[in-house]
C-alpha cells in the first residue's frame, strides 16, 4: 500500500474522528481532516488529496452532496463513503453515480484497509 498518499477524512463526530485518525496515522502520514461536508469541500479544493473517506450524515453539508460537488470538477479522486446500516438504500444511488466504494459502520479496520487498497488500484483492474 502506498503510504505516501494524501487522504482527506471527513467526519463530524469528534470521538470517532479522533479514534480513526489515531488508527490511520499508524499507516498513513498525510491525513487531512474536516468535520463536515462544506469544510471537506474547501479542504479538497485547497489540497487536492488522492483519496476521500467520508461520513454521510453531517451538519452544514452531508457527505453525499460533498462527493457530488467534488465529482463535478474532478473525476479522478477516489472516494469511500462510510454508512450506517439504515442508510444503505441511500448509498445505492451514490455508489452507481459517483462513489464506487463504501463500508458500513461500525468500521472494521481490516475491511477499511482492503477497501482503500482496492480503491487505489482500481485503475489497474
Amino acid at each position, binding site marked *: 500500500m502506498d503510504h505516501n498518499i494524501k487522504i482527506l477524512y471527513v467526519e463530524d*463526530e469528534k*470521538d*470517532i474522528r479522533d*479514534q480513526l485518525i489515531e488508527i490511520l496515522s*499508524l499507516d498513513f502520514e498525510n491525513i487531512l481532516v474536516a468535520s463536515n461536508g462544506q469544510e471537506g469541500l474547501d479542504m479538497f479544493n485547497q489540497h487536492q488529496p488522492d483519496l476521500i473517506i467520508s461520513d454521510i450524515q453531517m451538519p452544514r453539508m452531508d457527505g453525499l452532496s460533498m462527493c457530488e460537488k467534488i465529482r463535478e470538477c474532478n473525476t479522478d479522486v477516489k472516494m469511500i463513503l462510510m454508512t*450506517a446500516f439504515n442508510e444503505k438504500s441511500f448509498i445505492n444511488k451514490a455508489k452507481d453515480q459517483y462513489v464506487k466504494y463504501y463500508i458500513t459502520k*461500525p*468500521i472494521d*479496520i481490516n475491511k477499511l484497509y482492503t477497501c482503500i487498497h482496492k480503491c487505489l488500484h482500481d485503475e489497474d483492474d
Partner: protein
Amino acid sequence: MNSPDKIKPNTNFTVLYVEDQKDIQEEFQDILSLLIDKLVIASNGKEGLEKYQEALPDIIITDIQMPLMNGLNMIKEIRRNDKDIPIIVTSAFNESTYLLQAIELGIEHYLLKPVMLDQLQQRLQSITTRLMQKRELELYQLYLEDRVVEEMAIREEKESLLIQQNKAAEVGQMVSVIAHQWKQPLHYLYLLIEDLGIEFDYQTLSKEYIQDFIKKGTDRINFLSKTMDNFLSFYKNSTEIKSFSVNQVTQEIFMFLQDPYKTQGISLNIHVNNDFSLTGIENELQQVILNLINNAKEAFKGQKRADANITVTIDIENGLGMIKVEDNAGGIDETILNNIFDLEFTTKKEGNGIGLYLVKKIVNQRFKGKIDISNSEVGAYFILKFTLDTGNSNGS
C-alpha cells in the same frame, strides 16, 4: 333491544275491585273478567289495601261505604305511595262531601250506583288506552337510554384505542431517539477495541494507552447506561392517580430529549418560574407535553435555521397553573388554527391527526384544564391553564 319497532309493551292489566255487597260484587266480577285480564277482589277497604300491596294493580275500582275501612280512607292510604294509579269510585251517594273528598284524592271517575255496564266499560277503556301509551313511552325511553349507553361505550372504546395508538407511536419515537443516541458511541467503542489489536500488532501498547483505553471505554458505556436510565425514568406505564409536580414531569422529558434534539439543531429550553402540582395520571401529562414538543419539532422540518428553539414555561398566573409551549418555527397557518385540535386533522405526511386531539382531550377531561393555541411573532404558542390543586401553596 335492537330497534324501536320491536317495542311491544305488556298489554295485561290488573284491576283491584273493592265492593262489600256480595250481589253487586258477583255481578261485576263476571262482567269485569270479560273486559280485563286479571281481577283481584276485596270486600272492604282494609282488605283492599292488603290486596293492593300484594297484587300491585294497574287500576282500582272501589265502593265508598264499606265496613272496617271505607273506600276513601283506603284511597288515602294508597295515595301516600302511589300518586298516579287511576281510581274509579262507585257510590250510591250523590253527596257533594264524598265527591269533593274523592276529587281531592285525585280519582279518575265518580260513577253513581247502579253503575251502567257500558259506562264502566267506556271509562276502563280510556284508562287502559292511556296506560298503554304510557308504557310504550317508558319502553321507548328505556330503549333510547340503552342506545345512548351503547354509543358511549363504542366511543369510549374508539378513544382508548386512539390513546393506545398514540402511545405506541410515542414509544416508537422514543426507541428511535435511543437508537440515534446509541449509534455513535457504539461505533466509537468498536473502533476503540479494534485499535487495541492494532496497537498490539505495532507493539505500541503502554500502561498509559491501557489507562486511556479504559477511561474512554467506560465513559462511553456510562453514557449508554445513562441514556437507558433516562428513558426508563421517563417511560412510565403506571395509571396511578396521584398528585405530582409539573416541573418534575417536564424535566424527565427534557433529560431524555435535550441531547438528541441538540444533534438535530433544536435547542430545548425550560423556564420554571413557579412550579405547581396536578392530580391525575402523570403519564398522561407527559404525553401532552411530549406531543406539543414533538409537534414543534416537526414544524422545523425542512427549515435550516441555526436558532431553532422550543421553550416550555411553567408558571402560576392569576391563581392558575400554566404550561406554555412556544417555538420559533414560523407559526401555524391562521386558516387551520381552529381545526388543529380536531380528530384526524393533520398537516404532516406521516401524521395520524391524533396527537393534538388527544392533547386537548387529556387537558380538558383528565386535568379539567384548558388549552389555547395562537401564533406569536415567531411561531406557534400553546397555553395550558389548570385550576390549582388545593395542596398548592407555592403560588406567588
